[in-house]
């Protein structure tokens, strides 16, 4: 690369320079786009990330997604179907009004009301059959059946002031109703550009280091890295793996990492007898769908050299996966180990299943959704082609990929799943449980995998209030699904944040970038 000689225009342009930020100011560069400040309008990661600065929740998730008290000081079950939440006293909203049970009731009433919500927060409150304020700081929530995930779900949404129970989304965007109990107050929301926040000095928790925070949306990853390198922002999220090595070497840059709650996996059509993209090598139709045979699925899993993908494609910024979530999370199994790469064994297994000559397959993948998605897909295709399964890759923008996948147009797909609840029931319920509308099982099970044993254990787990017993059941369900190769887990991403020297970030498994987690360090 050619760099133009310094200094020619420097004098003329220096005046406009960077203007170093004042000591207590922070500018963050986000890879995602924020569509609204209304915390109950669109349940999407980037919006939730921003509204966490402004609003408190009954229960918060720490950097490892463990539950910690926020507006609720404690919680317990008082009978099989009733949860009691004791609220924190002395908390004030940004406008100076007191927080109490009325605000919780108003929030529960507003969530299902929000008009036009494209992704409602009702998924966190739908299980509540009755909500009662016992006194000004005690809440009882009743459900039809035992509901062990209640605290997890209560960490899913923001609490607003009862004054804004029926405030439309615009009032939040304009700032009028964006009155929460969070560590920051909203100063300005400029759609598509930036969000300006100022510190809430009356915050009930630990005060963050920064007086003002400016959150910029820089969706292009190279541009985001450039913004960090030029000092325009002090922290960026979603560090591209291509730049990781360079940033790591740079004295002026620090990196904060943690393994994420997101597994990248392959999903197979294990249901239909004839699947649209599974064919014989000459393109003719096959007598039956080989993906229905567990031996074929197992062979495919064995053919994939996960450490090679991690090292070469992900540049070390991932961990080979054995199940739905990394082992540190609740409900994971200690018995599941990463499938060992064994191409010869895979070929043998294929031959045993009657596909000694292999067959042909198209792997569909998004190309703008997950870290290096289409590159991972290509590497998988290389590896499967080596054992005789001729694999083509078709990478599509997520906007065309997702609707087609939901219409079951594909046979073999690359997906990712980040567990918002931070435990295993979320992927089990959505990805491998038999598709069932009334139970709400398998909404993202696009291979329509079905295994009665998995369903049965999962249902038992979802009824078990005792944490230890539930954890064991979830681990068993994971084992049943993985032994049957319900999905082929590839790797867990590592979440990276890059900061300017003098700053550090408490890396979070849930991929959120919070100003509260950015700390000042000595250079």
């Amino acid at each position, binding site marked *: 690369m050619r760099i133009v000689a310094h200094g020619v225009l420097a004098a003329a342009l220096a005046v406009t320079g960077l203007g170093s930020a004042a000591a207590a100011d922070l500018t963050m560069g986000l890879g995602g786009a924020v569509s609204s400040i209304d915390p109950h309008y669109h349940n999407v990661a980037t919006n939730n990330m921003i509204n966490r600065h402004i609003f408190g929740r009954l229960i918060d998730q720490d950097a490892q997604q463990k539950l910690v008290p926020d507006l609720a000081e404690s919680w317990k079950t008082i009978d099989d179907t009733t949860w009691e939440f004791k609220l924190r006293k002395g908390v004030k909203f940004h406008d100076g009004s007191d927080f109490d049970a009325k605000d919780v009731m108003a929030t529960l009433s507003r969530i299902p009301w929000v008009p036009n919500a494209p992704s409602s927060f009702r998924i966190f409150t739908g299980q509540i059959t009755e909500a009662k304020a016992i006194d000004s700081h005690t809440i009882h929530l009743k459900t039809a059946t035992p509901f062990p995930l209640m605290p997890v779900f209560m960490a899913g949404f923001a609490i607003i002031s009862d004054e804004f129970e029926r405030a439309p989304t615009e009032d939040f965007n304009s700032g009028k109703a964006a009155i929460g109990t969070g560590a920051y107050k909203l100063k300005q929301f400029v759609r598509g550009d930036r969000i300006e926040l100022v510190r809430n000095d009356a915050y009930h928790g630990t005060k963050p280091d920064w007086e003002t925070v400016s959150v910029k949306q820089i969706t292009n990853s190279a541009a985001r890295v450039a913004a960090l390198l030029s000092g325009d922002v002090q922290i960026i999220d979603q560090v591209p793996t291509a730049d*990781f090595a360079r940033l790591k070497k740079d004295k002026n840059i620090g990196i904060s990492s943690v393994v994420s709650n997101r597994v990248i996996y392959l999903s197979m059509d294990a249901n239909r007898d004839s699947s649209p993209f599974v064919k014989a090598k000459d393109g003719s139709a096959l007598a039956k769908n080989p993906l229905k045979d567990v031996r074929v699925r197992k062979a495919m899993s064995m053919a994939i050299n996960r450490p090679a993908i991690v090292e070469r494609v992900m540049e070390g910024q991932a961990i080979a996966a054995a199940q739905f979530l990394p082992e540190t999370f609740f409900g994971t199994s200690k018995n599941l180990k990463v499938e060992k790469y064994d191409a010869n064994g895979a070929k043998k297994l294929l031959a045993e299943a009657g596909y000694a000559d292999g067959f042909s397959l198209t792997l569909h993948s998004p190309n703008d959704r997950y870290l290096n998605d289409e590159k991972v897909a290509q590497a998988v295709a290389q590896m499967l082609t080596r054992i005789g399964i001729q694999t083509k890759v078709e990478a599509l923008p997520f906007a065309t990929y997702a609707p087609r996948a939901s219409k079951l147009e594909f046979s073999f797909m690359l997906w990712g799943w980040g567990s918002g609840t931070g435990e295993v029931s979320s992927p089990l319920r959505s990805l491998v449980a038999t598709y069932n509308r009334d139970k709400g099982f398998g909404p993202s099970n696009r291979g329509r995998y079905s295994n009665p044993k998995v369903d049965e254990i999962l249902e038992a787990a979802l009824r078990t209030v005792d944490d230890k017993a539930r954890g064991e059941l979830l681990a068993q369900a994971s084992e049943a699904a993985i032994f049957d190769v319900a999905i082929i887990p590839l790797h867990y991403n590592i979440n990276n944040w890059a900061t300017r020297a003098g700053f550090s970030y408490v890396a979070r498994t849930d991929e959120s970038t919070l100003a509260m987690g950015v700390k000042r360090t000595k250079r």
Partner: protein
Amino acid sequence: MTVTTPDRIEPAAPAAEPAVVSPLRRFWIEFRENKVAVAGLAGCILIVTLAILAPLISPQDPYDLMQLDIMDGRLEPGAQGMAGQTYWLGTDDQGRDMLSGILYGIRISLAVGVASGVLAMMLGASMGLLAAYFGGRVDTLIMRIVDLQLSFPAILLALIMVAVLGQGIDKIIIALVAVQWAYYARTIRGTALVERRKEYIEAARCLALGDARVVFRHLLPNCLPPLIVVGTVQVAHAIALEATLSFLGIGLPITEPSLGLLIANGFEYMLSGKYWISFFPGLALLLTIVSINLVGDQLRDVLNPRLRK
């Protein structure tokens, strides 16, 4: 082309008539006057030859996944692969030999650029001429379609096409024709509106020559110069546009990359110093486009009846 003396300039009208010397020969004599253009022509021939011979001269078939090995990914130029072969221009992240990738990439980029350019020019020029010559309702109809077409962002058009038709070279060509034809139509109409008022067209009409003959034998040659300017720009633009679509993730299939897609893929490595992944395809793209343009510039001068000696 040097400045000519006034008395050697012929009026425009007779120039449209066939000359006595074999036109091809006269064309060549005029063309070779400019040495840089001849070099450009040589470049074009070389590039086309490389594109045609790619399967014979590439060290690797970059489309065959069996021949790629991600363990050989991102090797520097001149590095040795796991199987002992040398990658003269390095490899990309999938372990694809850049030299082979570029040779095959030229094939695709050229095919896409030229095919879409030629088709768009034929379609656009016909439409523009028809609009200008007949005027009235024909003009209105065509120009409104042009307006409609030009306001449709290429990116959206491509996304819809990918959704409806699926990915592939033919779909990209269709999308690029759809994006470009209106430029030609608009440009040629502007010139033709001026030309058709001129005496030689009136004369041709008075001779009761057929409309088709007047349009294509008399009007078209005199409208060519601006068309060729736009054309050379557009072929290059088509190749660059295809690269941009690939950059946005809605171009060609990732496993059969064009030059543009190779650049787009290597783009994310620019900040990290792995320059070869996008530098060499970029160089190849640059040479291709520069050669096409050098030839195009000279063609324009030679074909321009008003500059003819």
